[in-house]
């Protein structure tokens, strides 16, 4: 394309500012929805993968009253001071077919030196734990020393630095990989450290957890175990608790996430379709109005291909500008607001790795452009076959 062809494209783009900006905005919206749709879906998938490996227990036993409907127990523990009787762990460990059973302690502190808000702590027993340790081992391979803690990825404290609870200092020995949920803002400690914390709180007059019973018990069983029967047995023995099968919890979470994904894809599809329809209509109208201009260009020596290039160039300019604006806006938005999304949706949300993000950005840039240019292709082809005599006669 030479300078004159580019000038024709550019000047025509700006000679219809309302139409052109409308197309740019529409393509930008399509890019934003496409980008956020893909990143949203990938983030949910990544979040679920992490969550699933993190919550690798067949059964979860929690006190009666813990809200399991919104899955907060999975995403952030429950810090409402509910605890289980100590005997439950012994009972579960002796159940037929059990391969592992481990307690967890959820503690919410009133203050910490690191943070403005309350900090949640999850205590676990390194001897029996099978859900937290494998995950923690990715970043911390040593044994736990009482008084040391591992922090979630969003807690900005370096390894070796101290964090203070109730005037007692604890050493940070590791930072975990991001999970994409509230566990990223949680501190993990072994049972002995949790006991030290409880004592420190008690010395300051706070009761941060009732009587040292576990907040939850996670258990794994041999393959083929009848979980209905196991749940029944536990509930016959103890009154005030709930037994949750992993499958049931994940079914709910997955169903919620699937609805979000479908909604986002529908919106992205709608805008993409609208871009195609509007570009087709706008360019049909505009090229019909300009048939005589195109015929004149042909007369003075433009090739038929050049006429088609002008139409395609104009739709490329409109959809390309929109795609760039939309992708930039979408990328900045999704990265800036990911915590807000996590907070409000209450579903695991973990941004995919950088190469996946780049690939998505490239897709969000090119797909609306291809759709836009593709929509004008038929019109460009028609203009390329223009009959000069008819075109000049029309509306003369």
């Amino acid at each position, binding site marked *: 394309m030479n300078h004159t062809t580019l000038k024709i494209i550019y000047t025509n783009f700006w*000679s219809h500012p309302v139409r052109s900006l409308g197309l740019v905005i529409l393509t930008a919206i399509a890019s934003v929805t496409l980008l956020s749709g893909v990143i949203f879906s990938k983030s949910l998938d990544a979040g679920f993968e992490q969550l699933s490996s993190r919550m690798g227990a067949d059964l979860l036993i929690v006190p009666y009253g813990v809200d399991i409907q919104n899955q907060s127990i999975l995403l952030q523990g429950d810090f409402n001071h509910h605890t289980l009787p100590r005997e439950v762990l012994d009972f579960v460990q002796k159940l037929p077919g059990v391969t592992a059973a481990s307690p967890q302690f959820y503690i919410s502190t009133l203050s910490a030196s690191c943070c403005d808000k309350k900090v949640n702590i999850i205590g676990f027993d390194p001897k029996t734990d099978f859900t937290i340790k494998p995950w923690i081992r990715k970043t911390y391979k040593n044994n736990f020393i009482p008084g040391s803690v591992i922090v979630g990825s969003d807690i900005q404290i370096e390894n070796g630095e101290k964090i203070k609870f109730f005037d007692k200092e604890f050493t940070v020995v590791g930072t975990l990989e991001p999970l994409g949920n509230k566990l990223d803002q949680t501190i993990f400690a072994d049972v002995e450290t949790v006991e030290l914390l409880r004592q420190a709180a008690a010395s300051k007059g706070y009761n941060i957890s009732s009587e040292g019973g576990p907040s939850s018990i996670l258990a794994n069983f041999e393959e083929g175990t009848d979980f209905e029967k196991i749940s029944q047995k536990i509930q016959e023995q103890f009154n005030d608790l709930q037994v949750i099968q992993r499958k049931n919890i994940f079914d709910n979470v997955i169903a919620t996430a699937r609805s979000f994904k479908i909604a986002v894809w529908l919106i992205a599809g709608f805008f993409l379709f609208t871009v195609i329809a509007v570009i087709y209509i706008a360019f049909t109208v505009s090229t019909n109005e300009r048939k005589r201009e195109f015929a004149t260009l*042909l007369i003075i020596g433009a090739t038929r291909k050049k006429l088609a290039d002008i139409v395609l160039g104009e739709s490329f300019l409109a959809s390309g500008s929109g795609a760039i604006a939309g992708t930039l806006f979408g990328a900045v938005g999704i990265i800036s607001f990911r915590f807000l999304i996590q907070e409000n949706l209450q579903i695991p949300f973990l941004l995919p790795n950088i190469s996946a993000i780049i690939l998505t950005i490239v897709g969000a840039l090119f797909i609306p452009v291809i759709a836009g240019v593709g929509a004008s292709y038929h019109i460009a082809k028609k203009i390329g076959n223009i009959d000069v005599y008819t075109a000049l006669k029309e509306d003369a």
Partner: protein
Amino acid sequence: MILNGNNITKQYTRRGEKFSAVNNADFFAWSGDFTVIFGESGSGKSTLLNALAGVTKPTSGNVEIDGQPLFSLNDEDLARLRNERIGYIPQNAASLSAFTVAENITLSSSLYNKKIDKEHIKALLDKLGIAHLANEHPQNLSGGELRRVAIARALANKPDLIIADEPTSNLDEENSRKVYSLFARLARTGVAIIIATHDKTAFGYSNRTYHMKSGTLIPDIGEYGNL
């Protein structure tokens, strides 16, 4: 330059019925010829000129310039030939509204990144009386001014064949005379001029005449010819 049209037929379909706008027309022009095609509206003059200018492919027959059949050329070569050798002024020529008059006139050069002969363009604008409009946009011009812009654009590339369809429509007597004089001067320098018109003044400048009636081209009608 020799322009030769043989058995040119152009058919269109109107309300499902085929009709011949031009029917087996034979046409011939040399360098320096000033040819006038006279005919009523709808007689097929414009269709014939479109075929001679290489912008509308005839249904049958052929058009040759210096022995080169125009419609056997590919899109690119035909476009370049139109750009370099043919200056065509169609009846309802449009201008590009986003470009100034000067830009519209030099468009045929700038399309192919050719150096613009500013002196030649300036002289053309002066001769056609539109030099003062060089920086105006076409939408601010009258019909007569637009007609003269179209003429200047067709002459900008110094073609050796000029085809003009009603070049003096929308022009007053004085400007019509200017245009014919300009064409006559060009013919004397070896440019072939072909004009389709209702305007009988044109016959005073011509050395070859045709009459077009219901798609049929009749040579050397004599009554108006200056042979």
